């Protein structure tokens, strides 16, 4: 079920009420049952796939802890292969098969391997990575294996973060299922505020911007460069608000229950470099790739060409994680390329700053860097959003030629611009005034009451209520 639905509201109220009423020792059972129900609300039979990976990794964790030497490595490899196989079949099989067909056709052969007509299980990429982080941490000796099968299953399936993260680490989450959580008024209110803010940025900002973005990106032949620039900027905020909105609801829901999930976004569009952007955007995923892939490949403690290769390959695979399409791979590769260029031209950049005396104007310097980073990120978003590689190239070409007239749909334009400015104001406050997870942080409770009631009124007035899915659900 979607977070922005009445089904979820009723489900959450019932689950939370029972959670605080029943004795502590049965709470994990309730949460596990609720998580199963939550997952089965999409396609019930897919719980068998989730169950399969949970069983594999549960036993893998126990065997990893007991075993030593080469066998230990083989258990880890077997667990990773099992997890990635499920991902490969459901997510990448058709993509690989299509590319094989293209390749064979190019040399005069025909591919007789059929396509699979299956729907991607929701949240597959997320819970697969979360499960893998468990087995890797047990292998590394950073985490004891979980002996309670139910608790381990709950670690993978915990419903607030089951379908779109944050991708948690066992060291952070597992022990929380054993802790007794009491009903704390302050914590519950904070959680509700987070959920409301998440709902606001999803329904009012993301879904409003989506109307314009979809009208442009789904009809590329009708539009020109000027329109694509606006649509791409709108998309940058759409995807941020969509994903950050989901994360806020997930973190807020978990907080109400007494669980602390990791922060997933930290005002990424205030980044002054691509490197900083990836420390602020989808933090749970980028840190996963850093800890389990980049560092395993050697990180930056290798020769320079190998370092660049590590960066490039990690980001390409990160792109592939997002979707089975060349556009996602190119998006990932572009980000890797940006990082490599930033390293290569770091000295040159410092020389330019010195020459232009930008150190004497730190605010101006920072503003320029933020804008430049945003432009680079937006350019990469073209590939993320475009329906095909050809379309992405067409859009890029149009933007460079700056052709066509600007497509103005006044309602969606005004809503879009207004909501972006609204968001940027509060993000600015959080960045430079008070570092808080919430848009406002004040001791004057009346101010908060007024602000949050205003959010509800705005949601009712301009929120999009057609139950649109969160973008990252498709990954």
């Amino acid at each position, binding site marked *: 079920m979607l977070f922005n639905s*009445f089904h979820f509201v009723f489900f959450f109220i019932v689950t939370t009420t029972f959670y605080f009423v029943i004795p502590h020792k049965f709470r994990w059972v309730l949460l596990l049952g609720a998580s199963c129900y939550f997952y089965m609300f999409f396609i019930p039979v897919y719980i068998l796939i989730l169950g399969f990976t949970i069983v594999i990794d549960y036993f893998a964790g126990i065997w990893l802890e007991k075993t030593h030497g080469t066998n230990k490595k083989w258990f880890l490899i077997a667990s990773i292969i099992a997890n990635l196989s499920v991902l490969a079949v459901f997510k990448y099989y058709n993509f690989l098969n299509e590319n094989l067909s293209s390749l064979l056709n190019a040399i005069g052969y025909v591919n007789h391997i059929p396509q699979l007509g299956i729907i991607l299980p929701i949240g597959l990429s997320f819970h697969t990575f979360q499960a893998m982080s468990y087995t890797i941490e047990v292998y590394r000796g950073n985490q004891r294996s979980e002996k309670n099968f139910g608790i381990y299953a709950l670690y993978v399936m915990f419903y607030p973060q089951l379908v779109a993260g944050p991708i948690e680490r066992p060291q952070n989450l597992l022990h929380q299922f054993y802790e007794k959580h009491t009903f704390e008024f302050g914590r519950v209110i904070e959680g509700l505020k987070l959920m409301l803010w998440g709902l606001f940025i999803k329904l009012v900002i993301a879904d409003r911007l989506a109307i314009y973005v979809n009208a442009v990106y789904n009809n590329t032949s009708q539009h020109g460069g000027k329109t694509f620039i606006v649509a791409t900027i709108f998309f940058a905020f759409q995807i941020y608000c969509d994903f950050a909105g989901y994360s806020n609801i997930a973190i807020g829901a978990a907080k109400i229950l007494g669980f602390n999930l990791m922060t997933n976004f930290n005002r990424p569009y205030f980044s002054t470099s691509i490197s900083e952007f990836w420390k602020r955007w989808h933090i749970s995923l980028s840190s996963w790739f850093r800890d389990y892939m980049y560092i395993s490949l050697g990180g930056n403690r290798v020769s320079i060409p190998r370092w660049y290769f590590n960066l490039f390959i990690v980001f390409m695979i990160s792109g592939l994680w997002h979707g089975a399409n060349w556009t996602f791979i190119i998006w990932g590769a572009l980000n890797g390329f940006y990082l490599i260029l930033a390293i290569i031209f770091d000295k040159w950049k410092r020389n330019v700053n010195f020459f232009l005396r930008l150190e004497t104007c730190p605010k101006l310097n920072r503003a320029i860097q933020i804008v430049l980073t945003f432009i680079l990120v937006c350019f990469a978003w073209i590939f993320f959003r475009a329906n095909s590689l050809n379309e992405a190239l067409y859009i890029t070409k149009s933007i460079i030629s700056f052709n066509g007239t600007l497509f103005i749909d006044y309602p969606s334009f005004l809503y879009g611009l207004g909501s972006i400015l609204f968001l940027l104001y509060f993000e600015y406050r959080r960045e430079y005034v008070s570092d808080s997870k919430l848009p406002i942080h004040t001791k004057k409770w009346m101010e908060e*009451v007024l602000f949050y*009631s205003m959010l*509800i*009124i705005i949601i*009712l*007035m*301009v929120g999009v*209520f057609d139950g649109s899915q969160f973008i990252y659900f498709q990954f």
Partner: protein
Amino acid sequence: MAANLFIFNFKSVIVNKLMRICLFVLLVILSDNIFGLLLKTAYKNSQNSLISEIHYSLMETHEDILIFGSSRAQHHYVSDSISKITGCSVYNCGAGGQGLLFSLIQISNTLDRYVPKRIILDVSPNILTDQNSYQKLKILDPYYSSDTLIRKYLNNLPFERLKNISKIYPYNSLLYEIVTGNFIIRTNKSHGYIPIYGQINTNSLLLADSLENSNISPYPQFDYLKEIIDLCKSNEVDLFIIISPIYKRTFSDIMLIKEVNKIAQNRNVHFLDFSNSSLVLDYKCFKDNIHLNSHGANIFSKIIANSINSDHILSN
């Protein structure tokens, strides 16, 4: 005593927090009612074309000939041209993006008030396979509490009853139209007709079949069509079902039009098929594959006016 003091402090903290929650809830309810009332008043006064045309077509029409349908109706039938030839007053109630369910509601509301001499229903093949009719009806949310038929259909949407507890919700997504409509003076829209300009680019035409495997499944749009026909017959209204020109028909279009023809014949209503445009108009008359431009609309409207004005019904 210390214990009593602790309990007293604890209770006062809880009471304090509960009071803040009650204040919050009260503020939300009060704001919802105040803004809801403001929006309701502003909506009624709005001269915005979308709102005023919907309102007029539902509540105020009194013309002899009414035209219903989607954007193809809106852009194809020049009310003034038809009026001149037929000698009757004409109003174009076409609504862009809407299907037959919307037309059914419009016609039903109209017939509750009076019986026009003729009703023209423009049926677009591309909307016959549309499965989102209820979702598109949300534009009628401001009438949810006052109109039984609209409420009946809107209640098919999930949790619509719950959402309409809010006084603001019916005006959701209409803020721009309401605000601008209260500051912009209404201009004459030619009795509902909206001209469009430009010419089709025949080189970049992309056609797609909306039917899978040429099977006419029982799409709900056909049920609405039958309901419209039955409603008009029971009120003794002269109904014309018209398929206006399409530049290039797809296989799906042809199959769907055949089905509409079958329904019209079974129920013995006038059916005029002008979809095969080459017999009627050339490419200069089209804005895109399914919409006539102003030039084409003027030519087509004269043909229609003559068709419905005579006993010899013209058709392809």
